[in-house]
């Protein structure tokens, strides 16, 4: 009996110790980020010599086809050869539409691979858009379209999330859960930029769901968890010997590159790693009851913040082709389009018009126009104009619906309140009274003339509007415009991307970066001491620079066309509730007078 009890004790001990000894969790993960809008609009005009180099002059469809054939299909083919492996492929929903239209055979291969468990397909947006800079509603339309697109093409969609440019934010957690997603892959550099190097835990709590970091490996012998990344980056580069689609002469399927990667995976497999998906890895952790760690407070941003200054490169920062960039023009036009689309739906409902088809397409076009590459990292003119042309067409469709609805309602001048969802006869209110500046804004215009005009909208709580008018300039130096708003000491306070109606505080002093640019999806940022600043995204949609040492907030445009006048509008508001309400009325659900 004593012997039996001892054996039982030993067995139980071994059983509970299993993860550390016998059944280690060993996964080799991948994240192939594919972007069919890698060169949004194609490569025509990219090379500036006269009519260009003919073989470099690829239109949008030819460029997309090149990405599919030279870089995407070879990766799919590799994993079809290895049924025991699983790869994680991230792409926008639009990618599937391109496959369905012009590469049905590749789509079939992808479906076969995914249904066999050989590929985990990740998609969080229909277009590779800068969604952390725009209202939640724009992303909702986008994710609903991407989920519908996956269903339409009968492709299973993973619960894992990774995004264009590695966009990530704590605010994603709630809506991820709402839309059936479960695991966020947080870019290692976006964490490290804020808090320095760190040892990755197997996984983390992320609201009520989970998060892992990539491409940070996990080496946790205590829990018996070993995870490595065989690949995380632009998927286009793996099969093409690191050439990207901007170089079509060299962007060719290279057998040796694929073979070299295959050898790496074979080696990992020999070392008992599961060549698996993020979903399977997280499920294995949960099955083994591995405890999830708690991450620090992380600011939203993108995957290479040290080289892009957070979101600055997409929201005011200049790139290589700075003469061709117009960040604020692109981002504000698309913000205006958001307003017109909401207004069109509001007034059409009032008029009883069925506009579902045209407005559904308008939202799709808007998501394409909001593409990151229209303003960063190094957009050339073709990409800049891709953003503007798409957002302008989305707006045109909306304006047609508004005019049709006005006619149906017998109204010539209408106030369309997208918050209250009403459309009634009305005209724009008169300008509020001009007042003196309640705070001192440091405006730097690089030699342009400028005016600064303050208006008082309310006195309880105090709401001010400031319009900064930069006159047209003469020189390239006049591209640089800047406004610094004074803050008072305290935490960084923002409304996180993909959230509304609340703010979050971040301990400024805890961050290690020198500075960081935030997108401000609803336009709001705290100035401290109960004062808030709101940018009107129709006029100024630049990143907001914060630092660990100063409470001041800086908006900087390095891409303002010198011969053009520019007008920026901000609001300064007393009290959080009033500020959140105004941010919603200005940027999320405004009233338009048409």
């Amino acid at each position, binding site marked *: 009996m004593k012997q039996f009890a001892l054996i039982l004790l030993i067995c139980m001990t071994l059983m509970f110790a299993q993860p550390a000894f016998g059944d280690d969790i060993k996964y080799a993960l991948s994240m192939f980020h594919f972007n069919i809008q890698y060169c949004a609009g194609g490569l025509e005009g990219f090379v500036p010599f006269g009519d260009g180099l003919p073989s470099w002059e690829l239109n949008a469809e030819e460029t997309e086809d090149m990405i599919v054939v030279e870089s995407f299909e070879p990766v799919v083919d590799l994993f079809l050869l290895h049924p025991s492996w699983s790869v994680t492929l991230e792409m926008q929903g639009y990618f599937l539409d391109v496959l369905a239209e012009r590469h049905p055979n590749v789509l079939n291969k992808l479906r076969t691979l995914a249904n066999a468990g050989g590929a985990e397909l990740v998609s969080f947006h229909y277009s590779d858009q800068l969604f952390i800079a725009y209202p939640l509603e724009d992303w909702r339309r986008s994710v609903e379209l991407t989920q519908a697109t996956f269903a339409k093409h009968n492709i299973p969609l993973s619960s894992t999330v990774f995004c264009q440019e590695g966009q990530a934010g704590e605010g994603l957690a709630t809506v991820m859960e709402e839309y059936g997603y479960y695991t966020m892959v947080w870019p290692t550099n976006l964490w490290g930029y804020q808090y320095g190097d760190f040892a990755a835990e197997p996984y983390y709590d992320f609201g009520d769901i989970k998060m892992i970091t990539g491409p940070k490996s996990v080496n946790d012998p205590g829990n018996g968890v070993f995870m490595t990344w065989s690949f995380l980056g632009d998927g286009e580069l793996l099969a093409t010997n690191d050439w990207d689609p901007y170089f079509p002469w060299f962007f060719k399927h290279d057998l040796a590159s694929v073979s070299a990667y295959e050898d790496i995976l074979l080696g990992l497999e020999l070392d008992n790693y599961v060549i698996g998906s993020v979903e399977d890895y997280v499920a294995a952790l949960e099955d083994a009851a591995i405890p999830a760690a708690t991450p620090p407070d992380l600011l939203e941003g993108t995957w290479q913040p040290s080289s892009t200054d957070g979101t600055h490169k997409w929201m005011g920062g200049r790139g290589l082709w700075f003469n061709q960039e117009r960040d604020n023009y692109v981002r504000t036009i698309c913000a*205006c389009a958001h307003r017109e689309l909401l207004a069109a739906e509001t007034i059409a409902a009032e008029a009883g018009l069925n506009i579902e088809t045209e407005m559904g397409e308008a939202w799709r076009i808007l998501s394409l126009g909001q593409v990151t590459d229209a303003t960063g990292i190094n957009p050339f003119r073709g990409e800049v104009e891709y953003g503007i042309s798409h957002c302008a067409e989305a707006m045109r469709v909306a304006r047609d619906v508004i005019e049709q609805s006005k006619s149906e309602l017998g109204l010539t001048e209408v106030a369309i309140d997208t918050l209250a969802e009403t459309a009634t006869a009305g005209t724009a209110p008169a300008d509020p009274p001009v007042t003196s500046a309640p705070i001192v804004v440091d405006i730097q215009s690089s030699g342009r003339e400028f005016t600064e005009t303050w208006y008082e909208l309310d006195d309880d709580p105090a709401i001010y509007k400031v319009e900064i008018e930069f006159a047209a300039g003469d020189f390239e130096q006049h591209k640089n415009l800047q406004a610094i708003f004074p803050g008072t000491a305290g935490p960084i306070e923002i409304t996180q991307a993909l959230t509304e109606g609340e703010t979050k505080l971040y301990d400024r002093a805890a961050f290690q970066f020198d500075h960081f640019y935030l997108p401000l999806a609803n336009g709001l940022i705290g100035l401290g001491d109960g004062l808030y600043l709101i940018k009107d995204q129709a006029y100024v949609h630049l990143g907001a620079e914060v630092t660990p040492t100063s409470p001041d907030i800086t908006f900087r445009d390095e891409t303002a066309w010198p011969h053009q*006048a520019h007008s920026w509008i901000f609001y300064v508001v007393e009290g959080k509730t009033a500020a959140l309400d105004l941010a919603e009325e200005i940027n999320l659900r405004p009233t338009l007078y048409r």
Partner: protein
Amino acid sequence: VKNLFLLLLILTALLFASIGCDCGDDDDDDNDDNDDDDDNDTTPDDDDDDNDDNDDDTGPPDEVLTAALEFEIRKTASVTIQRRGDNLTASYTANEGADLIADATTMEGTGSRFDFDGKYRMYSLKFTGPAVTGSLCAGDPISYSLTLTQQPGYNFVVGGFTAYCGDGVFTGKPAKIYRVSGPINVMEK
């Protein structure tokens, strides 16, 4: 490293080329960058005409504008717009064809001008052109939506030329959205 080297090489060339680029120039061919008179551009003051008796298509236009457009950067097109109040009639010429535009096509169209938030203005025009053999639209005529955005006071427009399959079709999934941009000037007033 290979990418970087080649990129640097091309960038250097592009940089020198782009320094001379007139993308941000007002193209008014005068020596003054911000003189409304010489620019012949559309200023907010032009709106004075909107409320007169000429807001119809019958009288003389309030102004005639012409824009020399670069189409998908490499090609060219031009549009001449007659504005009566916010109503527009226009003639659009595609100097070169494209996959959804017949060669050397001139089309007549109508549209409207409107302002929107951000001190922006848009010229929105609609045209219908002939079928293009072998195109995505097959044997159907093709409808085009021209959207030119502008910030008043600056005589440069940028926007899209969107092709829809079918006659008079301006909603639904476009066959293609082309990019257009260029200087716009008032020819008659």
